[in-house]
């Protein structure tokens, strides 16, 4: 009996060792990235003077734009390495803007952030609260300070700056524009060269364009309800938040009027589909002629241009008191708690990605607004915009554009606003109730930051 037990103990030990080796070997296959980053840092410490030392940057980026998503960005990364042989870029596609934000912040929380990332410009305060990013002012000063920054459109920079510092560089930026189907305009007896200019005109046009099976206008709601409300808020007076990201002004009479107008289009005039319209289906509806007009990001311009089987126009969003649209899209951030060498390399990469010629090309490929003014002076851009003037609409609208909703505790504040807007559009709240509730919830979420 004893013998048996002894033997079994030995075999147990052996099997435990086996198990450990299984887990160990799966560990090895699991984390090549960790190992490489671990080997990089000591070597950088040793070879301070060596110019050829290798730096590898992890680069998180969201959103499929302009063709196969990995190919485009990887091509740019390789181009960069060609110019800077000692820096390799490891692009990691991380899904939608929201997914990318989650991944990045999770990385920050676990002390393993990316080195550089494209994130929504509105993540500024969340990232600052986590102490995740570095100000770029020193780098900017080396490039010429204000004169460097002045080439960027100020409306885009407004989401990058707070407290006198600049924390991110605009990369793929947009405004919301009105796309309209010229053929359907003609069929409805409207002048196809003239888009609606005011809220009243818009209602009028949409009524004429609404037919059985075709909506007059579609405004996407899911995920971006706050962004769309911002258009009406800006057209009716003021933006929704303060520059320091600590206060929101949701329940002003102007905003209530704006939301009322939006919900009336659906409920009273029946020219916009009721309920929550998916962000993703709006462009398909437009391309299929199921809606005659749509509000959508200019980042969609190349897609519409390529796939529309009809003549289409692009114009400013209609105004009430003034024209207006929030900006949108992604900026490039450089992260804290990484090697200084990596930060320097990351800055080089950021500059490379936003170079005038590249900004122009990126804009032509996607429809996003080129973030630099000089990009519109380049030959290729001049030629492109003469053939296709619609590409200039979003840029020209920048004159009336303002920062996208961005505050401390951004996730909660945006939910505090988006949920009640959805409630209005699905008919369970009045605009006034909704925005009062949004204000109350957002104030609660912001209270700790106003102490």
């Amino acid at each position, binding site marked *: 009996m004893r013998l048996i037990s002894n033997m079994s103990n030995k075999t147990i030990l052996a099997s435990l060792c086996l198990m450990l080796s299984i887990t160990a070997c799966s560990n090895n296959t699991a984390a090549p990235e960790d190992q490489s980053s671990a080997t990089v840092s000591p070597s950088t410490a040793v070879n301070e003077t060596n110019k050829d030392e290798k730096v590898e940057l992890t680069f998180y980026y969201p959103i499929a734009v302009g063709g196969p998503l990995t190919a485009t960005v990887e091509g740019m990364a390789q181009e960069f390495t060609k110019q800077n042989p000692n820096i390799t870029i490891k692009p990691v596609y991380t899904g939608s803007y929201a997914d990318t934000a989650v991944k990045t912040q999770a990385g920050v929380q676990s002390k393993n952030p990316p080195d550089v990332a494209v994130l929504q410009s509105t993540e500024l305060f969340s990232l600052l609260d986590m102490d995740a990013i570095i100000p770029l002012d020193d780098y900017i000063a080396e490039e010429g300070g204000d004169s460097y920054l002045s080439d960027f459109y100020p409306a885009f920079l407004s989401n990058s700056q707070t407290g006198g510092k600049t924390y991110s560089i605009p990369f793929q930026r947009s405004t919301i524009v009105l796309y309209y189907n010229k053929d359907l305009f003609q069929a409805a007896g409207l002048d196809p060269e003239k888009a609606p200019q005011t809220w009243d005109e818009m209602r009028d046009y949409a009524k004429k364009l609404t037919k059985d099976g075709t909506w007059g206008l579609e405004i996407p*709601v899911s995920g971006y309800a706050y962004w769309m409300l911002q258009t009406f808020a800006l057209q009716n007076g003021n933006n929704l938040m303060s520059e320091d990201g600590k206060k929101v002004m949701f329940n002003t009479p102007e905003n209530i009027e704006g939301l009322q107008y939006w919900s009336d289009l659906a409920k009273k005039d029946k020219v916009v589909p009721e309920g929550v319209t998916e962000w993703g289906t709006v462009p398909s509806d437009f391309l299929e002629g199921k809606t005659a007009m749509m509000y959508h990001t200019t980042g969609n311009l190349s897609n519409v241009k390529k796939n529309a089987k009809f003549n289409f126009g692009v114009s400013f969003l209609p105004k009430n008191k003034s024209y207006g649209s929030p900006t949108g899209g992604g900026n490039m951030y450089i992260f804290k708690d990484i090697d200084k060498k990596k930060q320097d390399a990351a800055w080089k990469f950021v500059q490379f990605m936003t170079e005038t010629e590249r900004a122009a090309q990126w804009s032509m490929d996607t429809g996003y607004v080129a973030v630099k003014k000089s990009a519109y002076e380049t030959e290729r851009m001049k030629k492109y915009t003469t053939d296709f003037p619609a590409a200039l609409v979003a840029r020209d609208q920048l004159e009336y554009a303002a920062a996208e909703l961005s505050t401390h505790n951004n996730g909660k504040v945006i939910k505090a606003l988006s949920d009640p807007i959805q409630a209005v559009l699905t008919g369970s709240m009045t605009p006034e109730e909704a925005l009062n509730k949004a204000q109350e919830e957002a104030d609660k979420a912001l209270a700790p930051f106003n102490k």
Partner: protein
Amino acid sequence: MDNRRFRFHWKTNTFAWLLLLPSLLFLFLFTFYPIAKTVKLSLFQADLATLVPVFIGLDNYTNLIGDEVFWKVMSNNLWFAIGTVPTSIILAILMAIYCNKAMRGTSMVRISFFYPTMIPMIAVANVWLFIYTPQYGLLSRLMKSIGQGDINWLGSPQYVMWAMVIMVVWKEAGYFMIFFLAGLQNIPHDLYESAQVDGVGRWTVFRKITFPLLMPTTLFVSIVALTNSFKLVDHIMIMTKGGPNNASNLLLYYIYESAFSFWDQGMASTLTVVMIGVLLLFATLNFFGLDKKIHYR
């Protein structure tokens, strides 16, 4: 003799515990330790405003009671459970009874009921999203072809839960069918034969023989189904993100939002504690409600 006996026990004990060790290690590391940690963190304020967690006692819990979204999410989850659990169980029993008969095409039928089990929820959500999409979704096309108006299933608070329930029943009923098929194997054949001899109707046979003898399976399956209705949230990520206005939001998704979108770790922990409480409540109900033998005989 006594000494040997003692040694024998000691050896068996060691052997048994060594056999259990690996399982116990992972059990503690990923079930008991995190539960303890969660309970602790639920007593702290730990969000974007506080880089170092601050002890606040039960404040998170009192805040939760005042949180409308929390109550909405709880009632959604309740309705989701009420919608999915009985329906999929009844369907599963019917499927199993019919699939248990030797008929032509039975195996095809079985496959077609069971295959959704093999599809990831994420993939299911992609497919059904294109079924529910207004204008060119399958459902919308069908409704148009019979002259009905278009309904934005996922965009209206009154329909979105129904849409989700139907999808989940489609996915789960076949899985539960398998358990019932197994249960049916254990019912002695002669019971049916003697019932047939006595000329008992089919409904009576079901009521008096099949259903009572399937009871253990039914109870087991209903626990699985109930737990699933609280842990299945993958589809929300793809289809609605909890919208419109939280009409399709469920508890686990709200935990995900709190943790990884609001970065409110204290609240995420508090919600997790509530979730654990709910699941333990089911377990107790189960424990008292039924014959203990069913599970772990």
